[in-house]
Protein backbone atom coordinates (compact mmCIF):
# COMPACT_ATOMS: atom_id res chain seq x y z
CA UNK A 1 0.00 0.00 0.00
CA UNK A 2 1.19 3.48 -0.80
CA UNK A 3 2.54 5.62 2.04
CA UNK A 4 0.62 8.68 0.92
CA UNK A 5 -2.40 8.76 -1.32
CA UNK A 6 -4.54 11.70 -2.27
CA UNK A 7 -7.93 10.64 -3.56
CA UNK A 8 -9.93 12.92 -5.86
CA UNK A 9 -9.26 15.99 -3.76
CA UNK A 10 -11.38 18.97 -4.81
CA UNK A 11 -10.99 22.37 -3.15
CA UNK A 12 -12.61 25.69 -3.94
CA UNK A 13 -12.15 29.21 -2.59
CA UNK A 14 -15.06 31.57 -2.00
CA UNK A 15 -14.21 35.01 -3.26
CA UNK A 16 -16.37 38.10 -3.69
CA UNK A 17 -16.34 37.72 -7.44
CA UNK A 18 -17.44 34.08 -7.20
CA UNK A 19 -16.03 30.67 -6.42
CA UNK A 20 -12.65 29.64 -7.75
CA UNK A 21 -11.80 25.96 -8.07
CA UNK A 22 -8.26 25.58 -6.78
CA UNK A 23 -7.95 21.81 -7.05
CA UNK A 24 -10.06 19.74 -9.41
CA UNK A 25 -10.18 16.12 -8.37
CA UNK A 26 -6.47 15.68 -7.75
CA UNK A 27 -5.25 12.14 -7.10
CA UNK A 28 -1.73 10.98 -6.46
CA UNK A 29 0.15 8.18 -4.76
CA UNK A 30 3.60 8.07 -3.22
CA UNK A 31 5.49 4.96 -2.18
CA UNK A 32 7.80 4.69 0.79
CA UNK A 33 11.23 6.07 -0.04
CA UNK A 34 10.07 7.64 -3.28
CA UNK A 35 11.19 11.13 -4.30
CA UNK A 36 8.58 12.90 -6.39
CA UNK A 37 8.84 16.33 -7.92
CA UNK A 38 5.76 18.51 -8.32
CA UNK A 39 6.09 21.06 -11.08
CA UNK A 40 3.85 23.50 -12.85
CA UNK A 41 3.33 27.19 -13.59
CA UNK A 42 2.75 29.64 -10.73
CA UNK A 43 -0.77 29.64 -9.36
CA UNK A 44 -1.61 26.14 -10.52
CA UNK A 45 -2.32 24.88 -6.99
CA UNK A 46 0.97 23.33 -5.91
CA UNK A 47 1.07 25.06 -2.54
CA UNK A 48 -2.65 24.53 -1.97
CA UNK A 49 -2.09 20.82 -2.57
CA UNK A 50 0.89 20.75 -0.20
CA UNK A 51 -1.15 22.53 2.51
CA UNK A 52 -4.06 20.15 1.95
CA UNK A 53 -1.84 17.08 2.28
CA UNK A 54 -0.76 18.38 5.69
CA UNK A 55 -4.45 18.88 6.46
CA UNK A 56 -4.87 22.64 6.15
CA UNK A 57 -6.98 25.04 4.17
CA UNK A 58 -6.61 28.81 4.03
CA UNK A 59 -9.45 31.13 5.09
CA UNK A 60 -12.58 31.07 2.88
CA UNK A 61 -11.33 27.85 1.29
CA UNK A 62 -13.39 24.67 1.47
CA UNK A 63 -12.87 21.04 0.65
CA UNK A 64 -15.74 19.72 -1.50
CA UNK A 65 -14.68 16.15 -1.92
CA UNK A 66 -11.82 13.75 -1.45
CA UNK A 67 -9.44 12.58 1.22
CA UNK A 68 -5.76 12.41 2.06
CA UNK A 69 -4.54 9.07 3.40
CA UNK A 70 -1.21 8.72 5.14
CA UNK A 71 -0.21 5.17 6.12
CA UNK A 72 -3.83 4.13 6.49
CA UNK A 73 -4.94 7.24 8.42
CA UNK A 74 -7.65 9.08 6.49
CA UNK A 75 -7.97 12.86 6.84
CA UNK A 76 -9.98 15.66 5.26
CA UNK A 77 -8.23 19.05 5.15
CA UNK A 78 -9.78 21.77 7.34
CA UNK A 79 -9.21 25.39 8.13
CA UNK A 80 -6.76 25.99 10.97
CA UNK A 81 -8.55 26.04 14.33
CA UNK A 82 -11.64 24.15 13.22
CA UNK A 83 -10.01 20.84 14.18
CA UNK A 84 -9.99 22.15 17.75
CA UNK A 85 -13.55 20.89 18.02
CA UNK A 86 -13.77 18.53 15.06
CA UNK A 87 -11.78 15.33 14.76
CA UNK A 88 -8.22 15.89 13.54
CA UNK A 89 -6.90 12.49 12.49
CA UNK A 90 -3.44 13.81 11.61
CA UNK A 91 -2.81 15.31 15.07
CA UNK A 92 -0.37 12.57 16.08
CA UNK A 93 1.23 12.23 12.66
CA UNK A 94 1.93 15.87 11.87
CA UNK A 95 5.37 17.10 12.87
CA UNK A 96 6.46 13.59 13.80
CA UNK A 97 5.91 11.31 10.82
CA UNK A 98 5.19 13.94 8.19
CA UNK A 99 6.97 17.28 7.91
CA UNK A 100 6.52 20.37 5.77
CA UNK A 101 8.89 23.13 4.72
CA UNK A 102 6.94 26.19 3.68
CA UNK A 103 7.58 28.47 0.77
CA UNK A 104 7.70 31.81 2.60
CA UNK A 105 10.37 31.00 5.16
CA UNK A 106 10.43 34.44 6.67
CA UNK A 107 6.73 34.34 7.45
CA UNK A 108 6.97 30.82 8.78
CA UNK A 109 8.65 32.14 11.93
CA UNK A 110 6.86 34.05 14.69
CA UNK A 111 8.17 37.60 14.17
CA UNK A 112 8.02 38.52 17.87
CA UNK A 113 10.13 35.67 19.14
CA UNK A 114 13.86 34.95 18.98
CA UNK A 115 14.82 32.09 16.68
CA UNK A 116 16.50 30.19 19.52
CA UNK A 117 13.30 30.26 21.57
CA UNK A 118 11.29 29.00 18.61
CA UNK A 119 13.65 26.10 17.99
CA UNK A 120 13.58 25.31 21.71
CA UNK A 121 9.87 24.52 21.28
CA UNK A 122 10.95 21.33 19.49
CA UNK A 123 12.27 19.97 22.79
CA UNK A 124 9.19 20.50 24.91
CA UNK A 125 9.98 17.86 27.50
CA UNK A 126 13.35 19.36 28.47
CA UNK A 127 14.05 22.06 31.06
CA UNK A 128 14.50 25.74 30.21
CA UNK A 129 18.30 25.87 29.97
CA UNK A 130 18.56 22.40 28.46
CA UNK A 131 16.23 23.56 25.66
CA UNK A 132 18.38 26.61 24.88
CA UNK A 133 21.54 24.52 24.75
CA UNK A 134 19.86 22.06 22.41
CA UNK A 135 18.66 24.93 20.21
CA UNK A 136 22.21 26.19 19.75
CA UNK A 137 23.48 22.66 19.10
CA UNK A 138 20.68 22.37 16.53
CA UNK A 139 21.74 25.57 14.77
CA UNK A 140 25.34 24.34 14.69
CA UNK A 141 24.14 21.15 13.03
CA UNK A 142 22.20 23.24 10.49
CA UNK A 143 25.55 24.82 9.53
CA UNK A 144 24.35 28.40 9.78
CA UNK A 145 26.81 31.23 10.16
CA UNK A 146 27.37 32.23 13.80
CA UNK A 147 24.76 29.98 15.51
CA UNK A 148 24.83 31.88 18.83
CA UNK A 149 24.03 35.19 17.16
CA UNK A 150 21.24 33.69 15.06
CA UNK A 151 19.76 32.05 18.13
CA UNK A 152 19.48 35.51 19.71
CA UNK A 153 18.13 37.25 16.58
CA UNK A 154 14.57 37.88 15.56
CA UNK A 155 13.56 36.17 12.27
CA UNK A 156 13.39 39.57 10.57
CA UNK A 157 17.11 40.13 11.13
CA UNK A 158 18.32 36.89 9.57
CA UNK A 159 18.78 36.23 5.86
CA UNK A 160 16.16 34.01 4.20
CA UNK A 161 18.88 31.55 3.21
CA UNK A 162 19.81 30.86 6.83
CA UNK A 163 16.11 30.60 7.72
CA UNK A 164 15.61 28.10 4.94
CA UNK A 165 18.42 25.93 6.31
CA UNK A 166 16.90 26.11 9.78
CA UNK A 167 13.47 25.27 8.38
CA UNK A 168 14.70 22.19 6.49
CA UNK A 169 16.63 20.95 9.51
CA UNK A 170 13.59 21.50 11.75
CA UNK A 171 11.50 19.39 9.42
CA UNK A 172 14.09 16.59 9.52
CA UNK A 173 14.63 16.74 13.30
CA UNK A 174 11.96 14.16 14.23
CA UNK A 175 13.08 11.78 11.47
CA UNK A 176 9.83 11.87 9.44
CA UNK A 177 8.68 9.27 6.90
CA UNK A 178 7.37 11.91 4.50
CA UNK A 179 8.61 15.44 3.98
CA UNK A 180 6.99 18.01 1.72
CA UNK A 181 9.37 20.69 0.49
CA UNK A 182 7.83 23.79 -1.10
CA UNK A 183 10.62 25.45 -3.08
CA UNK A 184 13.09 24.71 -0.32
CA UNK A 185 16.27 25.87 -2.06
CA UNK A 186 15.03 29.17 -3.51
CA UNK A 187 17.17 31.38 -1.24
CA UNK A 188 20.21 29.13 -0.86
CA UNK A 189 23.58 29.52 -2.52
CA UNK A 190 24.79 26.44 -4.50
CA UNK A 191 27.06 25.24 -1.70
CA UNK A 192 24.36 25.40 0.99
CA UNK A 193 21.94 23.74 -1.40
CA UNK A 194 24.28 20.77 -1.75
CA UNK A 195 24.64 20.62 2.03
CA UNK A 196 20.90 20.51 2.48
CA UNK A 197 20.44 17.88 -0.24
CA UNK A 198 23.08 15.78 1.52
CA UNK A 199 21.20 16.19 4.82
CA UNK A 200 17.97 15.08 3.11
CA UNK A 201 19.67 12.06 1.55
CA UNK A 202 21.02 10.96 4.94
CA UNK A 203 17.49 9.87 5.87
CA UNK A 204 17.12 6.56 4.07
CA UNK A 205 13.63 5.38 3.22
CA UNK A 206 12.16 8.86 3.60
CA UNK A 207 9.68 9.93 0.94
CA UNK A 208 10.02 13.43 -0.43
CA UNK A 209 7.51 15.56 -2.31
CA UNK A 210 9.58 18.33 -3.83
CA UNK A 211 7.83 21.37 -5.26
CA UNK A 212 10.30 23.14 -7.50
CA UNK A 213 10.72 25.29 -10.58
CA UNK A 214 14.16 23.93 -11.40
CA UNK A 215 14.02 21.04 -13.90
CA UNK A 216 17.69 20.16 -13.33
CA UNK A 217 17.16 19.67 -9.60
CA UNK A 218 14.00 17.63 -10.20
CA UNK A 219 15.74 15.41 -12.75
CA UNK A 220 18.73 14.85 -10.52
CA UNK A 221 16.91 14.06 -7.28
CA UNK A 222 13.52 12.57 -8.10
CA UNK A 223 12.40 9.27 -9.59
CA UNK A 224 9.10 10.62 -10.91
CA UNK A 225 7.60 13.98 -11.78
CA UNK A 226 4.04 15.23 -11.49
CA UNK A 227 3.00 18.13 -13.67
CA UNK A 228 0.15 20.30 -12.47
CA UNK A 229 -1.88 22.68 -14.55
CA UNK A 230 -4.79 24.81 -13.38
CA UNK A 231 -5.69 22.63 -10.44
CA UNK A 232 -5.33 19.21 -12.04
CA UNK A 233 -2.48 16.76 -12.25
CA UNK A 234 -1.93 16.74 -15.98
CA UNK A 235 0.84 14.18 -16.24
CA UNK A 236 2.92 11.76 -14.22
CA UNK A 237 6.18 10.57 -15.70
CA UNK A 238 9.34 8.76 -14.72
CA UNK A 239 12.23 11.21 -14.65
CA UNK A 240 14.39 8.86 -16.69
CA UNK A 241 12.02 9.22 -19.66
CA UNK A 242 12.20 13.00 -19.75
CA UNK A 243 14.91 15.41 -20.74
CA UNK A 244 15.32 18.81 -19.12
CA UNK A 245 14.09 20.43 -22.34
CA UNK A 246 10.90 18.34 -22.22
CA UNK A 247 10.26 19.55 -18.68
CA UNK A 248 10.77 23.18 -19.60
CA UNK A 249 8.39 22.85 -22.54
CA UNK A 250 5.73 21.40 -20.22
CA UNK A 251 6.20 24.19 -17.72
CA UNK A 252 5.40 26.73 -20.42
CA UNK A 253 1.97 25.33 -21.24
Amino acid at each position, binding site marked *: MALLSVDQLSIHAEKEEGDIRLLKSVSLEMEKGEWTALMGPSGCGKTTLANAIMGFLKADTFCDYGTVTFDGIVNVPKQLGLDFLENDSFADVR*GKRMAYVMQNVREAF*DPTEKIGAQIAELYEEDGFFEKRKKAIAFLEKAQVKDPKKISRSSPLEVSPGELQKVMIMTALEKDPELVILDEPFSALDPLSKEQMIAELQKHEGMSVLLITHEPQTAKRLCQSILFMDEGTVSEKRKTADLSVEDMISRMEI
Partner: protein
Amino acid sequence: MSEAEVKMVLPENAFEKLPEDEKNNEFIAMKSRSYFQDVWFQYKKNKLAMVSLVFIIIMVLMAIFVPMFSRYSYEAQDLANPNAMPSMAHWFGTDKFGRDIFIRIMYGARISLSVGFAAAAINLVIGIVWGGMCGYIGGRFDMILMRIVDIIYSVPTLLYVILIMLIFGSNMFSVLLAICISSWVGLARQVRAQVMSQKEQEYALAAKVLGASDMRILFRHLVKNSIGPIIVNTTLMVPSAIFTEAFLSFVGIGISIPMASWGTMANEAKNMLFSAPLQMVWPVSAICLTMLALNFIGDGLNQALDPKKRSR
Protein backbone atom coordinates in the same frame (compact mmCIF):
# COMPACT_ATOMS: atom_id res chain seq x y z
CA MET B 1 30.55 55.03 -27.60
CA SER B 2 33.72 53.00 -27.97
CA GLU B 3 35.82 51.80 -25.07
CA ALA B 4 38.53 54.40 -25.69
CA GLU B 5 36.03 57.22 -25.36
CA VAL B 6 34.76 55.91 -22.03
CA LYS B 7 38.30 55.95 -20.69
CA MET B 8 38.70 59.55 -21.74
CA VAL B 9 35.51 60.62 -19.97
CA LEU B 10 36.75 59.24 -16.65
CA PRO B 11 40.04 60.91 -15.62
CA GLU B 12 42.37 58.93 -13.40
CA ASN B 13 41.78 60.96 -10.28
CA ALA B 14 37.98 60.83 -10.53
CA PHE B 15 37.85 58.52 -7.52
CA GLU B 16 39.90 58.71 -4.38
CA LYS B 17 40.39 56.21 -1.60
CA LEU B 18 38.47 56.60 1.65
CA PRO B 19 40.59 57.61 4.62
CA GLU B 20 40.96 54.84 7.22
CA ASP B 21 38.64 56.39 9.81
CA GLU B 22 35.72 56.62 7.39
CA LYS B 23 35.86 53.04 6.23
CA ASN B 24 33.61 51.73 8.95
CA ASN B 25 31.03 54.50 8.67
CA GLU B 26 28.42 52.33 7.06
CA PHE B 27 29.12 49.37 9.27
CA ILE B 28 28.10 50.88 12.58
CA ALA B 29 24.41 50.17 12.64
CA MET B 30 21.97 50.67 15.50
CA LYS B 31 22.08 47.96 18.14
CA SER B 32 19.24 45.57 17.54
CA ARG B 33 16.37 45.91 19.99
CA SER B 34 13.64 43.51 20.95
CA TYR B 35 10.03 44.44 20.30
CA PHE B 36 9.37 45.73 23.80
CA GLN B 37 12.67 47.59 24.02
CA ASP B 38 11.69 49.33 20.83
CA VAL B 39 8.26 50.20 22.22
CA TRP B 40 9.87 51.65 25.36
CA PHE B 41 12.29 53.67 23.22
CA GLN B 42 9.40 55.13 21.24
CA TYR B 43 7.32 55.72 24.37
CA LYS B 44 10.13 57.65 26.07
CA LYS B 45 10.12 60.19 23.24
CA ASN B 46 6.57 61.25 24.14
CA LYS B 47 7.06 63.83 26.94
CA LEU B 48 3.40 64.08 27.91
CA ALA B 49 3.06 60.32 28.21
CA MET B 50 6.22 60.11 30.30
CA VAL B 51 5.01 62.83 32.70
CA SER B 52 1.68 61.03 32.96
CA LEU B 53 3.39 57.73 33.71
CA VAL B 54 5.47 59.33 36.48
CA PHE B 55 2.31 60.98 37.86
CA ILE B 56 0.42 57.67 37.99
CA ILE B 57 3.36 55.87 39.59
CA ILE B 58 3.61 58.58 42.30
CA MET B 59 -0.15 58.39 42.77
CA VAL B 60 -0.04 54.61 43.22
CA LEU B 61 2.88 54.80 45.68
CA MET B 62 1.16 57.52 47.69
CA ALA B 63 -2.12 55.65 47.73
CA ILE B 64 -0.31 52.62 49.12
CA PHE B 65 2.02 54.25 51.66
CA VAL B 66 0.51 57.55 52.84
CA PRO B 67 -2.45 55.96 54.71
CA MET B 68 0.00 53.56 56.41
CA PHE B 69 2.05 56.31 57.99
CA SER B 70 -0.47 59.12 58.42
CA ARG B 71 -1.78 60.11 61.87
CA TYR B 72 -5.27 60.66 60.40
CA SER B 73 -7.72 58.05 59.17
CA TYR B 74 -10.43 58.46 56.54
CA GLU B 75 -13.26 58.17 59.10
CA ALA B 76 -11.91 59.82 62.29
CA GLN B 77 -13.96 62.96 62.92
CA ASP B 78 -12.73 66.15 64.59
CA LEU B 79 -15.98 68.01 65.23
CA ALA B 80 -14.14 70.92 66.84
CA ASN B 81 -12.44 71.71 63.55
CA PRO B 82 -14.91 71.40 60.62
CA ASN B 83 -14.54 72.99 57.17
CA ALA B 84 -10.99 74.15 57.90
CA MET B 85 -8.96 75.82 55.18
CA PRO B 86 -5.69 74.16 54.05
CA SER B 87 -2.97 74.43 56.72
CA MET B 88 0.19 72.63 57.81
CA ALA B 89 -1.84 70.23 59.95
CA HIS B 90 -4.47 69.54 57.26
CA TRP B 91 -2.86 70.00 53.83
CA PHE B 92 -6.15 70.03 51.91
CA GLY B 93 -8.26 71.27 54.85
CA THR B 94 -11.07 69.33 56.53
CA ASP B 95 -14.65 68.53 55.55
CA LYS B 96 -17.88 69.24 57.44
CA PHE B 97 -17.14 66.48 60.00
CA GLY B 98 -13.58 67.67 60.48
CA ARG B 99 -12.08 64.73 58.55
CA ASP B 100 -8.74 65.36 56.89
CA ILE B 101 -9.38 65.72 53.13
CA PHE B 102 -5.83 64.84 52.04
CA ILE B 103 -5.98 61.40 53.62
CA ARG B 104 -9.47 60.87 52.24
CA ILE B 105 -8.19 61.68 48.75
CA MET B 106 -5.46 59.08 49.26
CA TYR B 107 -8.00 56.47 50.39
CA GLY B 108 -10.11 57.49 47.38
CA ALA B 109 -7.08 56.88 45.17
CA ARG B 110 -6.80 53.38 46.65
CA ILE B 111 -10.39 52.61 45.75
CA SER B 112 -10.42 54.33 42.36
CA LEU B 113 -7.10 52.96 41.14
CA SER B 114 -7.76 49.45 42.39
CA VAL B 115 -11.21 49.45 40.78
CA GLY B 116 -9.66 50.78 37.56
CA PHE B 117 -6.78 48.32 37.37
CA ALA B 118 -8.77 45.34 38.62
CA ALA B 119 -11.54 45.98 36.09
CA ALA B 120 -8.99 46.29 33.28
CA ALA B 121 -7.22 43.09 34.36
CA ILE B 122 -10.46 41.08 34.59
CA ASN B 123 -11.59 42.43 31.22
CA LEU B 124 -8.23 41.59 29.71
CA VAL B 125 -8.38 37.95 30.81
CA ILE B 126 -12.00 37.38 29.81
CA GLY B 127 -11.57 39.32 26.56
CA ILE B 128 -8.46 37.40 25.50
CA VAL B 129 -9.85 33.97 26.33
CA TRP B 130 -13.31 34.56 24.85
CA GLY B 131 -12.20 36.55 21.80
CA GLY B 132 -9.18 34.33 21.21
CA MET B 133 -11.22 31.13 21.23
CA CYS B 134 -13.83 32.66 18.90
CA GLY B 135 -11.25 33.97 16.46
CA TYR B 136 -9.14 30.83 16.45
CA ILE B 137 -11.82 28.16 16.27
CA GLY B 138 -14.29 29.98 14.05
CA GLY B 139 -17.26 28.26 12.49
CA ARG B 140 -20.43 27.61 14.46
CA PHE B 141 -18.66 27.88 17.83
CA ASP B 142 -17.64 31.44 16.98
CA MET B 143 -21.13 32.25 15.75
CA ILE B 144 -22.81 31.20 19.00
CA LEU B 145 -20.30 32.88 21.30
CA MET B 146 -20.35 36.15 19.38
CA ARG B 147 -24.17 36.27 19.48
CA ILE B 148 -23.91 36.03 23.29
CA VAL B 149 -21.54 39.00 23.13
CA ASP B 150 -24.02 40.90 20.97
CA ILE B 151 -26.80 40.28 23.46
CA ILE B 152 -24.68 41.51 26.38
CA TYR B 153 -23.69 44.54 24.33
CA SER B 154 -27.26 45.44 23.45
CA VAL B 155 -28.44 45.90 27.08
CA PRO B 156 -27.63 49.37 28.48
CA THR B 157 -24.79 49.34 31.03
CA LEU B 158 -26.70 51.39 33.60
CA LEU B 159 -29.40 48.73 33.71
CA TYR B 160 -26.87 46.06 34.72
CA VAL B 161 -25.35 48.41 37.26
CA ILE B 162 -28.62 49.19 39.00
CA LEU B 163 -29.69 45.54 38.98
CA ILE B 164 -26.39 44.37 40.42
CA MET B 165 -26.44 47.11 43.07
CA LEU B 166 -29.94 46.01 44.07
CA ILE B 167 -28.90 42.39 44.41
CA PHE B 168 -25.40 42.68 45.93
CA GLY B 169 -25.67 46.04 47.70
CA SER B 170 -23.37 49.06 47.33
CA ASN B 171 -19.82 47.89 47.82
CA MET B 172 -16.60 47.59 45.90
CA PHE B 173 -17.27 44.05 44.72
CA SER B 174 -20.59 44.95 43.11
CA VAL B 175 -19.12 48.10 41.51
CA LEU B 176 -16.36 45.94 40.02
CA LEU B 177 -18.85 43.32 38.85
CA ALA B 178 -21.05 46.00 37.32
CA ILE B 179 -18.17 47.55 35.41
CA CYS B 180 -16.76 44.21 34.23
CA ILE B 181 -19.96 42.54 33.16
CA SER B 182 -20.45 44.71 30.11
CA SER B 183 -17.08 46.21 29.23
CA TRP B 184 -15.18 43.04 28.31
CA VAL B 185 -17.22 42.54 25.15
CA GLY B 186 -15.44 45.35 23.28
CA LEU B 187 -12.07 43.80 24.03
CA ALA B 188 -13.32 40.33 23.09
CA ARG B 189 -14.40 41.62 19.68
CA GLN B 190 -11.06 43.27 19.12
CA VAL B 191 -9.05 40.21 20.17
CA ARG B 192 -11.21 38.05 17.91
CA ALA B 193 -10.53 40.28 14.90
CA GLN B 194 -6.80 40.33 15.62
CA VAL B 195 -6.57 36.58 16.10
CA MET B 196 -8.52 35.95 12.92
CA SER B 197 -6.06 37.98 10.88
CA GLN B 198 -3.01 36.53 12.65
CA LYS B 199 -4.33 33.01 12.09
CA GLU B 200 -3.83 33.46 8.36
CA GLN B 201 -0.13 34.19 8.83
CA GLU B 202 2.16 31.37 7.82
CA TYR B 203 3.83 31.03 11.22
CA ALA B 204 0.59 29.77 12.76
CA LEU B 205 0.51 27.01 10.16
CA ALA B 206 4.22 26.36 10.63
CA ALA B 207 3.76 25.94 14.38
CA LYS B 208 0.87 23.54 13.77
CA VAL B 209 2.90 21.58 11.22
CA LEU B 210 5.62 21.09 13.82
CA GLY B 211 3.02 19.53 16.08
CA ALA B 212 2.37 22.45 18.49
CA SER B 213 -0.92 22.25 20.38
CA ASP B 214 -3.78 24.62 19.57
CA MET B 215 -3.63 26.25 23.01
CA ARG B 216 0.04 26.99 22.53
CA ILE B 217 -0.45 28.44 19.05
CA LEU B 218 -3.33 30.60 20.21
CA PHE B 219 -1.94 32.04 23.44
CA ARG B 220 1.78 31.95 22.83
CA HIS B 221 1.89 33.06 19.20
CA LEU B 222 -1.36 34.59 17.97
CA VAL B 223 -2.26 36.61 21.07
CA LYS B 224 1.35 37.69 21.54
CA ASN B 225 1.49 38.98 18.00
CA SER B 226 -1.68 41.03 18.40
CA ILE B 227 -0.71 42.36 21.83
CA GLY B 228 -0.28 46.00 20.69
CA PRO B 229 -3.93 47.00 20.17
CA ILE B 230 -4.93 44.83 23.14
CA ILE B 231 -2.59 46.72 25.49
CA VAL B 232 -3.82 50.10 24.24
CA ASN B 233 -7.45 49.09 24.65
CA THR B 234 -6.79 47.79 28.17
CA THR B 235 -4.96 50.96 29.21
CA LEU B 236 -7.88 53.07 28.03
CA MET B 237 -10.23 50.80 29.99
CA VAL B 238 -8.65 51.90 33.30
CA PRO B 239 -9.80 55.56 33.11
CA SER B 240 -13.23 54.56 31.88
CA ALA B 241 -13.63 52.19 34.84
CA ILE B 242 -12.44 54.89 37.26
CA PHE B 243 -14.89 57.31 35.73
CA THR B 244 -17.77 54.84 35.97
CA GLU B 245 -16.96 54.17 39.63
CA ALA B 246 -16.78 57.92 40.42
CA PHE B 247 -20.03 58.52 38.60
CA LEU B 248 -21.84 55.68 40.40
CA SER B 249 -20.55 56.87 43.78
CA PHE B 250 -21.54 60.45 42.99
CA VAL B 251 -25.14 59.54 42.21
CA GLY B 252 -25.14 57.42 45.35
CA ILE B 253 -25.27 53.83 44.06
CA GLY B 254 -21.55 53.06 44.10
CA ILE B 255 -19.19 52.92 47.08
CA SER B 256 -21.24 53.79 50.16
CA ILE B 257 -20.30 56.31 52.87
CA PRO B 258 -18.27 56.57 55.08
CA MET B 259 -15.82 54.91 52.64
CA ALA B 260 -13.89 57.63 50.85
CA SER B 261 -14.18 57.32 47.10
CA TRP B 262 -13.60 60.40 44.93
CA GLY B 263 -17.20 60.14 43.77
CA THR B 264 -18.66 60.03 47.29
CA MET B 265 -16.41 62.92 48.35
CA ALA B 266 -17.66 65.04 45.45
CA ASN B 267 -21.19 64.05 46.39
CA GLU B 268 -20.70 65.18 50.01
CA ALA B 269 -19.01 68.40 48.91
CA LYS B 270 -21.84 69.45 46.62
CA ASN B 271 -23.93 70.61 49.64
CA MET B 272 -21.06 72.88 50.69
CA LEU B 273 -20.38 74.15 47.17
CA PHE B 274 -20.95 77.82 48.02
CA SER B 275 -19.60 77.98 51.58
CA ALA B 276 -16.52 75.76 51.05
CA PRO B 277 -15.90 75.34 47.30
CA LEU B 278 -12.37 73.97 47.88
CA GLN B 279 -13.88 70.73 49.21
CA MET B 280 -15.26 70.09 45.71
CA VAL B 281 -12.04 71.09 43.95
CA TRP B 282 -9.88 68.35 45.54
CA PRO B 283 -11.81 65.20 44.51
CA VAL B 284 -12.76 66.61 41.11
CA SER B 285 -9.19 67.58 40.26
CA ALA B 286 -8.00 64.17 41.47
CA ILE B 287 -10.45 62.52 39.07
CA CYS B 288 -9.54 64.89 36.23
CA LEU B 289 -5.77 64.54 36.58
CA THR B 290 -5.90 60.76 36.88
CA MET B 291 -8.18 60.42 33.87
CA LEU B 292 -6.03 62.77 31.81
CA ALA B 293 -2.81 61.01 32.79
CA LEU B 294 -4.22 57.55 32.00
CA ASN B 295 -5.55 58.75 28.66
CA PHE B 296 -2.17 60.24 27.77
CA ILE B 297 -0.50 56.96 28.70
CA GLY B 298 -2.92 55.09 26.46
CA ASP B 299 -2.26 57.54 23.67
CA GLY B 300 1.50 57.26 24.09
CA LEU B 301 1.31 53.46 24.04
CA ASN B 302 -0.87 53.59 20.97
CA GLN B 303 1.78 55.60 19.16
CA ALA B 304 4.65 53.49 20.44
CA LEU B 305 3.05 50.14 19.62
CA ASP B 306 1.79 51.01 16.16
CA PRO B 307 4.69 51.44 13.76
CA LYS B 308 2.54 53.45 11.36
CA LYS B 309 1.85 56.16 13.94
CA ARG B 310 5.45 56.60 15.08
CA SER B 311 7.16 59.92 14.71
CA ARG B 312 10.73 59.66 13.51
